């Protein structure tokens, strides 16, 4: 009866009011995912509009500087709208349109998913409303204006911790309020089934492209594929095609905030435990009574107390490793990649860059690391300047 489990994680833990909506979504997805016309339309959008395939770039200066494993960057930052988020959004909004929906709603943390959703909605002529924690609308003011420019209505969420988790709460609430004409474009591999599967499938283009390009460039598979993990969509997209390739280490980099030994952290795998929240069984940061913990990260996109159920399962079965990366390490990596390669990474992606910097020097020169550079860092420049004590506001 229950569906969408990855090992013991996943499921459909949402109010009865939404059950028919997610069944309708699942049915539509099953119908369209292999429909030649839908696949062709989406491929065209990804190619002509998003700019896929994205580049697999050999970061030669970084490699030489670190003196160990060869480092490749998967340039999801070069997608239209500046992150991997558009891959999933184009798929979901196209699907919503096929389902006859005329309005899309979405949560956003850093604003990347909100911008991508607003973009796709503008392109496909859909009404669009975005829910974003009040704290994040302050942290990412530029993205708020960007969404409005694209024709979306942005609702600052003032409940709870006023961050990504609360934006998700509020988007679910709005969905129960208006279902008939509305699709919830969930932005990560989380939530109730079928979202973790749909988002993973739409993001899995990342891993497929990495594999193809790597075989062309190096004639072999990489030794490590790594990515940052909040909900986990860019990581899941990068990992998915490599899961059967046991020789490839998969590493998810979580936001440790001020450290996993402090309360100001968002490292769910390292500090959380089994729970059921936001529609899914997975790992969550919580107290002994099951109250969801307020989490913290400098990165609004990773500032989330849970993680997608498929990641939780990959951890359980030992197929992927999850490591904590602090604010400090991420900011250092943000600056390092900017001056070493001339690429300004999103502060989210900088968490993965930071861990590559840590392990590459200890690996042989014959080893290969692929870092999924999930987004570009323009949105973070002012915040990083402030982190470094400069009085810069957008």
């Amino acid at each position, binding site marked *: 009866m229950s569906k969408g489990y990855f090992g013991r994680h996943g499921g459909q833990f949402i109010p*009865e009011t939404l059950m028919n909506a997610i069944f309708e979504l699942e049915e539509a997805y099953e119908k369209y995912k292999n429909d030649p016309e839908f696949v062709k339309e989406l491929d065209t959008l990804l190619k002509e509009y998003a700019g896929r395939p994205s580049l697999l770039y050999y970061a030669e200066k970084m490699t030489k500087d670190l003196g160990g494993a060869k480092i490749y960057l998967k340039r999801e930052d070069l997608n239209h709208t500046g992150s991997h988020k558009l891959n999933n959004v184009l798929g979901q909004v196209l699907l919503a349109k096929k389902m006859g929906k005329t309005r899309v709603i979405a949560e956003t943390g850093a604003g990347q998913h909100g911008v991508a959703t607003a973009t796709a909605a503008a392109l496909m002529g859909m009404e669009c409303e975005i829910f974003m924690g009040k704290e994040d609308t302050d942290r990412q003011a530029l993205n708020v204006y960007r969404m409005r420019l694209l024709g979306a209505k942005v609702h600052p969420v003032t409940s709870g911790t006023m961050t990504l988790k609360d934006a998700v709460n509020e988007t679910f609430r709005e969905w129960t309020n208006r279902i008939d004409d509305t699709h919830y474009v969930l932005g990560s591999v989380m939530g109730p089934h079928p979202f973790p599967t749909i988002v993973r499938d739409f993001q899995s283009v990342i891993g497929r492209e990495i594999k193809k390009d790597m075989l062309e460039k190096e004639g072999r598979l990489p030794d490590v594929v790594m990515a940052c993990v909040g909900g986990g969509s860019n990581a899941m997209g990068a990992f998915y095609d490599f899961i059967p390739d046991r020789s490839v280490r998969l590493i998810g980099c979580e936001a440790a905030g001020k450290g996993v030994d402090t309360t100001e952290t968002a490292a769910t795998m390292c500090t959380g435990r089994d*729970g059921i929240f936001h529609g899914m069984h997975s790992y969550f940061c919580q107290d002994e009574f099951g109250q*969801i913990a307020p989490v913290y990260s400098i990165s609004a996109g990773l500032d989330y107390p849970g993680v997608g159920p498929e990641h939780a399962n990959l951890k359980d079965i030992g197929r992927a490793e999850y490591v904590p990366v602090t604010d400090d390490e991420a900011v250092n990596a943000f600056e390092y990649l900017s001056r070493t390669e001339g690429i300004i990474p999103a502060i989210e992606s900088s968490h993965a860059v930071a861990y590559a910097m840590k392990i590459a020097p200890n690996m042989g020169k014959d080893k290969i690391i692929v870092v999924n550079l999930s987004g570009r860092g323009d949105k973070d420049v002012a915040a990083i300047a402030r982190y470094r004590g400069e009085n810069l506001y957008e």
Partner: protein
Amino acid sequence: MSKITEVFKKGKAFIPFVTAGDPCLEITEQLLVEMDKSGADIIEVGIPFSDPVAEGVVIQEADIRALSAGTTTDKIFDMLKRVRPNLSCALAIMTYVNPVYGYGIKKFLSNCKEAGVDALIVPDVPFEERALLKPSCQEYGIEYVSFIAPTSHQRIKMIAKEASGFLYCVSSLGVTGVRSEITTNIGEMIGLVKEVSNIPCAVGFGISTPVQAKKMAESADGVIVGSAIVKICAEYGRDCVPYVAEYVKKMKDAIS
């Protein structure tokens, strides 16, 4: 016969909800006693949750007040165990799945049993996931309450056939909160239930006035009121008890 079943045998049930610990557990304890005296048939005690996704602003804020005041699940059970002997009504706990699961399902239900709780209501566990809680509830002799909503359509009969205690009929789309008008055809929803089951149906979400309650009770076996009561608690704080008692009496009279 369970206490819940007995309640509905006696006539239309009035089911008030309070958030435990808002503004503090001493007041919640007094509220339970006075609501019982004022005619409450089942009292729904809400265990506050950090992220109550099915609630509107009124109950969200009550949850924050209660948690900020240091309310915990353990303290709520202690209070319930203390006050239970003084109550004649049935008692239900309403909370979200993580405060049950994260606390430990067996430990939670064992505490419920000890505290004389008759039913458990968890809005984010739908029919498809009932295996998580229902068998354990049966083991501890606690009624596991299922939901139907205006969007349930073809699911109503499937859910009704397996329902126990009473069926929680969500009156409207959206989250909890006072509504000036309820447009769903409740009679039709309940009609579908009664085709396959004689499970009592209690309507909740949006009901605040005696007129609305009376209208709902024409087709429903019970009326659930949450936000309207929590609003009184928010307005009067520690002095809320007589106001809530008076309101409960008025609502019970309207459906009797």
